[in-house]
């Protein structure tokens, strides 16, 4: 879908100011960066501070904590299936370690656990590897160059990015285990971009004091994911993968230890029971909840299932009051809505401009500040560009990059996005992109320790489902790192826990029954069920005609 004529008229306004803006850029005349006080003022426009966007959770271990309505809706929902209907005295699978989630964290955990002798089952909702890991383009941080960098500086950067609220022990583990995670991947044959002598190439990311972002061309996450997945497949004797079978409930035993999960086979619609000596929760984030109506960069299955299951089993949540919005997601054309436009465009000189063709913020502020500035410009200042779907956007003036760095730069440096737009009849080296902040990352999650342990014995976790590492705001390049460091740790801890001998006992879903009762008692939930499993994109008119269909939550 090319730009309609009315948007083309508005693009002329952008063009009318472009030459002058390019000239200023060449003279290093930038829109000044905001001071710390000005940043704080700007952040009042960030969705995180909108009190009407969240409410106190009425039930569970973090009762009273204020989180987004969309998250509270799930935490206050009943189980998908009546727990009394499930017979947990018999099980369909038995294993040492059950890993829930088949992304980067879960797969690394499975490999490490299997290396320590554990039999592993990976239960995953989509295919093995269909995860946000696969979509991460930018890179993975690690202080690997001792002549200029160290875990000390990495620690400082992580804390500064997270507003100094991060859990210190988790950050320490993240930065000290980062180089060994990279080394592990290198040994598995992951193709990081290197110089001829084997030196890893590194660049800056937003908020880094040293260039420590490692990358594999512009598909870093995909290269990492396909490498670890291939390794897991080589270990099929120890690692069994069950696809299209998300976990919907954790199972505890009579001692209160985590001892398995109930899986839902989405294709045959059966519920099955897995008995396990330890469980690693690695279900990722929540983009598909579309918090506050935002579009998302996340994959189809990012619906916070692990948070719901862990919370019901008694693990508190933290840092869920903050959500990361990537400042620049595609808002037009509608087919590409939510897709991320990398920070590199702004790093290469593209301005953000409003409907009048004017700049309103420096394009290299931290993610949360940049996102807040765009929202303010569109809503409070009414300077947004209206889109055909009734939304608002801001121009990201990509043609400037060719003017600054020579014709052909956009096509050469951003081949993926150039082709994507070309399919829609838009040449981004000639026409600007229309963007708006897009829901990108769940900063918070279930509470856990740097060993991967949670408050429930036998339940470990890794990756985006956990909270505390990134405080209130994650830096670019630290999520691919997080899943590798803590995925490996969780796998190792779970296997150690199993190898030390676990106390067997009667399996039970009493905690789910109790939770359902608490919801009823508080009058919460409104008949909703969770985990969501998949978002619902059925047209309302279609849904109205599905007269004999029965929906459980979003699933028919």
């Amino acid at each position, binding site marked *: 879908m090319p730009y309609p004529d009315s948007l083309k008229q508005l693009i002329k306004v952008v063009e009318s100011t472009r030459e002058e803006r390019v000239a200023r850029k060449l003279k290093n005349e930038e829109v000044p960066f905001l001071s710390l006080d000005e940043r704080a003022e700007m952040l009042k426009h960030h969705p995180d501070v909108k009190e009407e966007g969240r409410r106190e959770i009425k039930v569970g271990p973090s009762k009273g904590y204020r989180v987004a309505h969309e998250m509270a809706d799930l935490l206050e929902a009943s189980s998908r299936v009546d727990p009394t209907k499930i017979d947990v005295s018999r099980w369909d699978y038995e294993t040492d370690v059950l890993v829930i989630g088949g992304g980067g964290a879960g797969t690394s955990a499975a490999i490490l656990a299997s290396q320590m002798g554990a039999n592993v089952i990976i239960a995953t909702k989509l295919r093995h*590897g269909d995860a946000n890991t*696969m979509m991460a383009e930018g890179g993975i941080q690690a202080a690997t*160059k001792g002549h200029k960098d160290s*875990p000390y500086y990495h620690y400082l*950067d992580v804390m500064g990015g997270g507003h100094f609220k991060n859990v210190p022990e988790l950050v320490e583990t993240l930065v000290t285990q980062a180089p*060994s995670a990279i080394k592990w991947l290198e040994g598995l*044959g992951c193709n990081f971009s290197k110089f001829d002598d084997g030196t890893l190439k590194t660049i800056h990311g937003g908020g880094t004091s040293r260039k420590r972002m490692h990358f594999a061309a512009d598909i870093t996450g995909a290269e990492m994911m396909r490498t670890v997945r291939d390794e897991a497949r080589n270990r099929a004797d120890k690692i069994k993968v069950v696809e299209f079978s998300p976990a919907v409930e954790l199972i505890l035993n009579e001692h209160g230890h985590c001892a398995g999960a109930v899986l839902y086979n989405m294709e045959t619609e059966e519920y099955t029971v897995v008995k396990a000596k330890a469980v690693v929760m690695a279900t990722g984030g929540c983009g598909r909840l579309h918090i506050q109506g935002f579009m998302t960069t996340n*994959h189809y299955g990012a619906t916070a299932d692990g948070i719901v299951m862990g919370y019901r089993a008694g693990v508190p949540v933290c840092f869920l009051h903050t959500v990361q919005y990537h400042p620049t997601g595609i808002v037009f054309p509608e087919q590409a809505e939510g897709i991320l436009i990398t920070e590199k465009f702004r790093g290469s000189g593209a301005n953000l401009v409003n409907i009048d063709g004017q700049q309103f913020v420096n394009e290299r502020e931290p993610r949360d500040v940049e996102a807040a500035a765009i929202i303010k410009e569109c809503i409070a200042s009414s300077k947004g560009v209206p*889109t055909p779907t009734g939304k608002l956007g801001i121009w990201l003036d990509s043609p400037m990059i060719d003017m600054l760095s020579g014709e052909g730069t956009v096509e050469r440096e951003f081949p993926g996005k150039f082709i994507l737009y070309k399919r829609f009849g838009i040449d981004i080296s000639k026409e600007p992109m229309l963007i708006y902040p897009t829901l990108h990352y769940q900063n918070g999650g279930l509470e856990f320790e740097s060993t991967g342990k949670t408050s429930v014995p036998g339940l470990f976790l890794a990756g985006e489902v956990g909270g505390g590492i990134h405080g209130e705001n994650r830096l670019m390049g630290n999520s691919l790192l997080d899943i590798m460091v803590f995925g490996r740790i969780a796998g190792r801890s779970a296997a150690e826990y199993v190898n030390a001998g676990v106390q067997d006992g009667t399996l039970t879903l009493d905690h789910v029954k109790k939770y359902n009762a608490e919801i009823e008692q508080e009058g919460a939930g409104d008949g909703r069920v969770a985990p969501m499993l*998949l978002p619902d994109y059925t047209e309302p008119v279609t849904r109205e005609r599905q007269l004999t269909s029965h929906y459980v939550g979003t699933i028919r």
Partner: protein
Amino acid sequence: MSSQVDQIKEEVEAKLIPIYVMGKQYMVPESLTIMKAIEYAGYKYIRGCGCRGGVCGACATVYRKPGEYKIRTGLACQTVVESEMYLTQLPFYPANRATYEFDNLEGVPEEIFQLYPELFRCVACNACSKVCPMDVEVMDYIAALKRGDIAEASRISFDCIQCGLCASRCMGELPQYHIAQLARRITGAYLTPSAEHLKTMVANIEAGRYTKGLDELKAADTENLRNLYTEREMEPATAGEDWSPQSDAYL
């Protein structure tokens, strides 16, 4: 403002066009991707949908346009519908995958030949390259492997998303994308020099070189941390590999 929105909205108000999902006609807005059109038609995805961003390989789609013999392919999440297109998704295609102990490989071509003898069943018909939704020159990397050039195969296959369409069209019944995965891993681990600075850093961390500095940071109060953060020396954007900071106190 609202009249402006209405005006733009009206202009792109998509007209409905017919598409045939596995032979059955549905009227869908012409601006949608195949994925959104199938959802618009009333389907609920379980298979055939993953990242929705063109990198996971879950939504490989095969289609044909009226009056054409040509088989076309695309990713459902990236391809815009066309009037009268006949389409089906191929969310899974069975392909042979060899199992190997990666650490015990030597990284030589003969190992690939042994694990995947069907490599030599390739008749160079190029159906694999034609069908690739990522425009990977599949036949060329298979040819490189037949010559024993693992690194070249790795380079050519780098953008592969492992959707399996190549295997679905192969006369020689090769699992191209699995073979390429092995080639890339061998290239990364055996044919590319490992990073010396990385080994040194891991050893230094294990030896406790940074423990004292990190203990100081963990013990620091927020105000102190803020100061250290604000004052930390920034590596300039234009600095080369040999750049060093002024202070080496915490290196």
